[in-house]
């Protein structure tokens, strides 16, 4: 075949459960060796999508291809994919080594090879000393590594991970994120990673598909998803975002002017073809907004505001200000200077000007 094959290709896949639609007409192409994340709130259909790729569920309509091969109703045990389950699903009556060896035993691989590969797999996840233990004798993080080793030892074309880090504490989660990424790069296996944690998705993924209500809203690299969200939902779900609703007044060279109901005018970069009179929303991320004290700055997107709340979180200071129309607005300032001088920080009640550059804000469909 001359056409490029994808590790996984979903073609108009829909899944219905007794009258409710879990996945709606999803089409995706995931490349070989890609770290691909399915990101969305719980109930958005991301786990159902993963389960269909694994073969635990069959699509109501649409086709799934793995390495160019149409899956149809091929059962899970005959698909060249392996899964790391959210709850790990380790076999409680087997030792760690037996758990890891399970897939190879099913393939009837000879005992000596199994022993060598189990040892390698346990080395890879730094659990060589734990082979004889039962899963219950391990910590959550260790169980997670066993689940990973148990899946990877089979050298699948595609590894499916269903929120594998959700049960770990923050510190461990960060460590495992880096470790997973480095294992994926070393082995060159395609990873499809389900998560509801946007930071996790941004950190690890080559590409992300953002899902809501069974639909894929946007697919793109982390920077695209964060900097060029196509919908209000994506902008809101990934990171923090300020939104200003309004009606389009004018469109000039990609800069769109909106007027709010309160008569305030804002200007942002047009992401969508909009015309005067359309309802639209301006989105601007809090770290892209500047606060100015004293003299009113020149240019567009400048508002007088009052500081309402200040949260110092170490690396940043997060400030909530009130705009003249009464709406709250988030501003994050990086703490680039080390100081204890209280005058260097904002306090509630300070009069300030809020401003942002047109190219740092987007006009989205309402």
């Amino acid at each position, binding site marked *: 075949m001359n056409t490029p094959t994808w590790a996984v290709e979903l073609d108009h896949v829909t899944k219905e459960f007794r009258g409710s639609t879990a996945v709606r007409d999803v089409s995706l192409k995931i490349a070989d060796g890609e770290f691909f994340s399915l990101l969305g709130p719980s109930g958005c259909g991301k786990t159902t999508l993963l389960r269909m790729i694994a073969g635990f569920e069959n699509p109501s309509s649409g086709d799934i291809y793995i390495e160019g091969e149409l899956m149809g109703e091929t059962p899970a*045990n005959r698909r060249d994919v*392996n899964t790391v389950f959210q*709850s790990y*699903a380790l*076999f409680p009556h087997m030792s760690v080594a037996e758990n890891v060896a399970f*897939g190879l035993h099913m393939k009837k691989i000879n005992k000596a090879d199994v022993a060598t590969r189990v040892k390698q797999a346990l080395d890879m996840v730094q659990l060589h000393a734990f082979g004889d233990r039962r899963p219950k004798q391990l910590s959550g993080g260790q169980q997670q590594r066993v689940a990973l080793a148990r899946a990877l030892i089979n050298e699948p074309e595609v590894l499916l991970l269903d929120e594998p880090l959700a049960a770990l504490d923050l510190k461990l989660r960060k460590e495992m994120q880096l470790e997973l990424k480095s294992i994926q790069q070393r082995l060159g296996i395609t990873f499809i990673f389900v998560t509801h944690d946007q930071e996790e998705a941004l950190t690890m993924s080559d590409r992300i598909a953002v899902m809501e209500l069974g639909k894929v809203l946007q697919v793109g690299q982390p920077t695209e998803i964060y900097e060029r969200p196509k919908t209000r939902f994506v902008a809101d779900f990934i990171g923090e975002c300020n939104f200003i609703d309004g009606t389009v007044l004018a469109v000039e060279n990609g800069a769109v002017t909106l007027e709010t109901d309160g008569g305030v005018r804002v200007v942002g970069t047009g992401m969508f073809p909009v015309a005067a009179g359309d309802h639209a929303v301006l989105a601007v991320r809090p770290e892209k907004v500047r606060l100015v004290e004293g003299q009113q700055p020149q240019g567009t997107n400048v508002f007088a505001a009052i500081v309402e709340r200040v949260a110092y979180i170490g690396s940043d200071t997060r400030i909530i200000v009130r705009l003249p129309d009464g709406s709250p607005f988030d501003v994050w300032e990086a703490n680039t200077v080390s100081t204890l001088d209280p005058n260097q920080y904002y306090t509630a009640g300070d009069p300030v000007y809020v401003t942002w550059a047109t190219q740092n804000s987007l006009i989205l469909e309402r």
Partner: protein
Amino acid sequence: MAKILADKRIETKHGRSRPVAKRHMPWGTWALTLNAIFVYTFLYVPIIVLVLFSFNAAKVGAQWQGFTLQWYNELFADARLGDALWTSLKIAGLSTLIATTIGTLAALALEKRGWRGRKAFDTGLYLPVIIPDVVMAVSLLGFFTLAFRQFQALLGLNLAMGLWTVIISHVAFNISFVTVVVGTSLANFDRRLEEAAADLGATPWQTFWKIKFPLIGPGVLGGALLSFTLSLDDFVVTFFTRGPGVNTLTTEVYGRIKKSISPEINAISSLMLLGSTILVLTSLWMQRRRQA
């Protein structure tokens, strides 16, 4: 008793300031404790008396005349009892084997969702657990009589009650108990493990034998032990469904007490009690033993 209770109350009344009187027992708890004592007395005194009298040297009467193992010795020398025990074990063993197989399969079928009549089947299975033994026994007797007549009429076969009718009857009531016990064990089984096994390349057959069965095994064994115990202890169903010459321990004991309650009967009963207790405790222990 009343005096003691009154004293306790006074003690607790002043108890707050005195660190000595830490315990505080409200009236409700007292009432419940008394009730529990009463229940246990009611349950266990007859049993204790029975066991004690199996060691009583007196041949008749309720007077303690010293400790003896004579009745146990006579018991072990009694050939009729030996035969009855062997019959009981045959019935219990075979009916347990059959009932455990069918009951486990039934529990596995009930676990699968989405087939018509599952609920009705589930409820129906509990019926033998709650209906009185005698109803079960009479209906089985009626069933056999009817079946024999049909066999006679249609196939010309002359069938009669015997050991096998008792075994079939025991299977009939034991299936329910096995299904309930195995069902509990299945309810605790994490179905993700089956998916994990399939994901790692195991066929449904391999998944069952390597993952599911080892994990529900204690439940199956528990069900089998319970079934074995129920079969050994059964009198009513056996009495109605046995053929001539079939004598189990319970029917043998019944036959003997029609004359009088002899110390030997006490001794057999004590041994049956001991055996059943061990079986039931083992069964409970098996069920409770989760995957360590």
